[in-house]
Every structure is written in C-alpha cells, then in structure tokens.
C-alpha cells in the first residue's frame, strides 16, 4: 500500500531550486535551535533535579549580556531570512519581459486556460520547458489560488482583478495543479495537471489544438460584436481613444495622472470605464460589467494587446 515515502516534491522549474535552498537554510536554523533548546532543557532538568524536598534553586536574577546575546543573534538570523526571502520573492513576482503569455480563468470548480494562438484546455495546462511562461489569471466567482507544487509557484486568483504568476519549467513531465484557496464544495476537486514539454513537442501540441483562431482573433470578433469599434476608431476621429499602438505605453488621464496601459488597465476600462478616463475624452463609455464573461474579457485584452504590438512592429 505504501510503496513510497515521499519527503520532498520534485523540482521542475527554475524557481524550485531557489525555494529549496531557502527551505534548507530555514530547516537548518529550526533544527539547530530546537535541538539547542531541547538539549538544554533536558540536561538542566536532569542535572538540577530536586534532590530533597526542602531544596530551592539559586537566586540568579539575570544577565544583561545574555539578554543582548539572545536578542541580537536571532535578530541577525531573521534579517538574513528576510533579505533572502525578499530576493526570491522579487524574482518570483516580476515576470521577465518577453515571457510567453497564457490566460487562465478560475471558476467553481475548474481551471480554464487559453493560449494566445487560441488553444483552450480545462484542468490541463501545456507549457514548453526552458521558456518563461506568464499566466494572467482572473476569476469568475470567488477567490481561488493557482498552485503547482513541483514548480513552487502560487498566486491567488481574485474576482474583479487580474493577478499574474510566472515560471520557467525545466523538466518535461506531468505535475499537479491544485487550487489552494478554499472555494466551496468541490475545492479539493479543483485540480488538474500541468504538462511540461520539449518546445518542439509543444509546438506540435498547439498545432493539434486551437480551432477557431487565436485569442486575439476571438477578441477582434467580440470587438465588432460589442460595437466597440464604433467609438474606438483608428484614425483618431472616434469618441474613444485610438487603441492601435496604445498597449504597453503610458497615457495621461483627465486627472493629470499617468498610467501605463497594461492588462489590468484594459480590464478596468472595460468594466468600469469612468474610473480612469484618458485626457481629452468624455466619460461616456458604458460599462460592460455583466455583459462579458471573464474569458471574453481576456480575449478582448489579448486583442487590444495585439493592436499595440502591430504598431510597435511598424515603428
């Protein structure tokens, strides 16, 4: 029955090594201090055990030197933990430029993934090894959390906003995908598999998927169907800002602030158009809250993003 006694998850991503190194350091510190305290307690308790009933202990009131010692040493060690942990955290929360993007939607109780070229999967995620992959994630209902133990990555998937997570898989194989934020009855069934493949295999797999065009194509169709195109004209004469070439660039708002047009900004502008209106335009765009699903939102974002890239290429 119990053929395996696993102590340690596989390390199948570039990040896993960093996390494991930090883990071993923390385990070493824990083991050292636990052993130190346990040995002291046992040795003192045995050596100074009560010999006769009237015996009392010595009156020792303390030592400032010792107090400073066991204040400063733990402080130093915890600061090492903090700095090291912060370094790893920075590395893990900032996706490298040019990472391959995949959109993920969590809903009770499944994971839906959509690749840029249009391939869709449910409770499965195929990724190439050796290449940074950035997941842009949204939720349709409650908070979920996307966790791949073998990659040591995790991020909450929160309704009403987009979160990102990135990794570079290093070893081909099939790995667990878990939801770790409690999300209702079938929380423990909101699981799946991540398949890491050689890049060539991945390309072949993509070729086999993706009927119905790329994500941007789907977004372009929505863009027409929802009549976005009547205001967002390419010639600058429309009632809405020109979207061509806009993505990824800073823009000045009515309030005088400057924001960069990214996934989160596009999403917010579709659902809550009045929140950040571009300078020189009227706040007349209607909200699309409730009219588009989280998945369609992501397709629209992918389309707007593709418009930005078009322009960038011709520059």
């Amino acid at each position: 029955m119990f053929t395996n006694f696993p102590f340690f998850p596989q390390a199948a991503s570039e990040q896993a090594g960093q996390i494991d190194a930090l883990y071993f350091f923390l385990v070493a510190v824990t083991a050292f201090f636990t052993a130190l305290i346990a040995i002291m307690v046992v040795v003192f308790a045995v050596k100074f055990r009560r010999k006769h009933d009237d015996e009392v202990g010595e009156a020792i009131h303390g030592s400032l030197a010792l107090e400073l010692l066991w204040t400063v040493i733990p402080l130093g060690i915890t600061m090492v933990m903090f700095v090291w942990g912060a370094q790893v955290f920075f590395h893990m929360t900032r996706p490298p430029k040019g990472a391959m993007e995949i959109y993920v939607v969590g809903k009770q109780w499944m994971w839906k993934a959509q690749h840029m070229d249009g391939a869709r999967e449910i409770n499965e995620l195929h990724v190439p090894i050796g290449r940074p992959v950035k997941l842009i994630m949204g939720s349709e209902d409650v908070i979920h959390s996307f966790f791949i133990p073998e990659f040591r990555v995790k991020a909450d998937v929160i309704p009403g906003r987009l979160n990102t997570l990135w990794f570079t898989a290093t070893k081909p194989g099939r790995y667990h995908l878990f939801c770790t934020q409690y999300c209702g009855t079938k929380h423990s069934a909101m699981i799946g598999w991540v398949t890491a493949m050689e890049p060539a295999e991945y390309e072949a797999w993509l070729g086999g998927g993706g009927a119905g065009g790329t994500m941007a194509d789907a977004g372009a169709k929505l863009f027409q169907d929802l009549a976005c195109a009547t205001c967002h004209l390419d010639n600058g004469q429309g009632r809405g800002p020109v979207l061509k070439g806009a993505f990824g660039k800073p823009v000045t708002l009515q309030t005088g602030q400057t924001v960069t047009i990214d996934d989160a900004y596009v999403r917010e502008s579709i659902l809550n158009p009045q929140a950040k209106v571009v300078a020189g335009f009227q706040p007349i765009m209607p909200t699309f809250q409730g009219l588009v699903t989280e998945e369609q939102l992501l397709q629209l974002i992918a389309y707007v993003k593709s418009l930005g890239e078009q322009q960038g290429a011709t520059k």
Partner: protein
Amino acid sequence: MSDAPSSYQPPPVAIHPAPVAEHAHHPWLQHHFDNMEQQAEASTLGMWVFLVTEIMFFGGLFMAYLVYRHQSPSGFQEASHHLNIYWGAANTAILIVSSLTMALAVRAAQTSQPAKTQVGWLLATMGFGAAFLGIKAIEYYDKFRDHIVPGPYFQWEGQYPKPAEQFYSLYFAMTGLHALHMVIGLGIMTVIAVMAWRKTFDEEYYTPVEVAGLYWHFVDIVWIFLFPLLYLIGRHYHAG
C-alpha cells in the same frame, strides 16, 4: 500518593493583617473596593477602555470608507451630493448642544446641586438626543422615498451607480450604527435620570453620571467625524 507532593513551605510574599471590625461605608461602595476613590477611578478607567474598543469598532467602517473613497473619489462625490448639508449641520449643532447639557449635568452632580437641576440637564440632553434621531429619521425617509437605499430597489440617475450604491451602503452602516449608539445612550440617560431624581448623586458619588457622560460625548465625537466625511467632502464641485 502522599497527601501533598511537597511539605516544603516557603515564607509568604505578603503581610496578611487580621480582620478588624467593619467601619461605616458609603452606601454605594461595592464590597470589593477599598474606598470610593478606587471605585470611581476603576469605573472611569473602565469606560475609557470601553470607548477605545468603540473607536476600533467604528474604525472598521471608517477603514472601508477610506478604501472605497480612495478607489472611486468621483463616484463618492456624486453620491454625497444627494445628502442634505443643512440637516447634517443642524444635527451636528444639536449634538454639540446635547454635549454641553451633558457636561453641565455632570457638573451639577459634582457640585451637589439639587436633584431637580441634575435631572433638568439630563432631560435636556435626552431631548436633544431625541431631536437628533428625529432628523435622522427624516433623512432616512428621504432616502427610502428616492430609492437610494442599497439593495434590489436601488436607483441612481448619475454617472456612477455602483460607487453610489457603495457610498449609501457605508452611509447606512455608519449612521445606522451611530444612531444605535444614540438609542442606547438614551436608555442609559433614562436610568441615570431616575437615579438622579432619587437624589443618588452628590459630590461624594457621581461616577455613574460622569461615566454616562463620557459615553455621550464619545457618540458626539463620532458624529463630528461622520458629518464632514459623509456630507461635506467634495461638495464644492456641485455647490457653486
């Protein structure tokens, strides 16, 4: 097992004087206090500590207000426009007057003035408190009439229906909690007024009036912040 695990008996850490005959106590001194001063100090400190918990209790709502005001400033501005500044200002003034009469009620007890004077100030305080609640009721009625009570029947004509609904969620939560405190305050004042009528309070013993006063002033302070936050911020955009 032995009768007791240890026969060793260390010396005591305190001197335990033998009981002596009871001498006369103030009738309102509780048995576990040494004297009236200790009792009064304990009661006022207790009320202050309680007021700290009240600050944190309202604090959760103020926190929510702060976050959502930060997230949709224009929406909150638009929503606040529906509130009537004059009702709000009148209520602020009424509460300040009630705080004054409360302070004078405490002073009347402190200086052993006749029960009639004490009760008079207390009744005045209660009257102004009731007036505040009356105006609040009129304001609430207006909201019901205009369908700006959050929920399925909420209607908003302006640009920002969502933030407006949120504003009114917070408006009702904050002013509702405040009004509940006023109602409780009126209950406390009734008890205090009856005690005062029975000539309970004089310069020797006036802790209950003082403690009730602390509570009343605190409720006043909450309104001092609620008024500008809900009614005033951002009004000039439309008031001109």
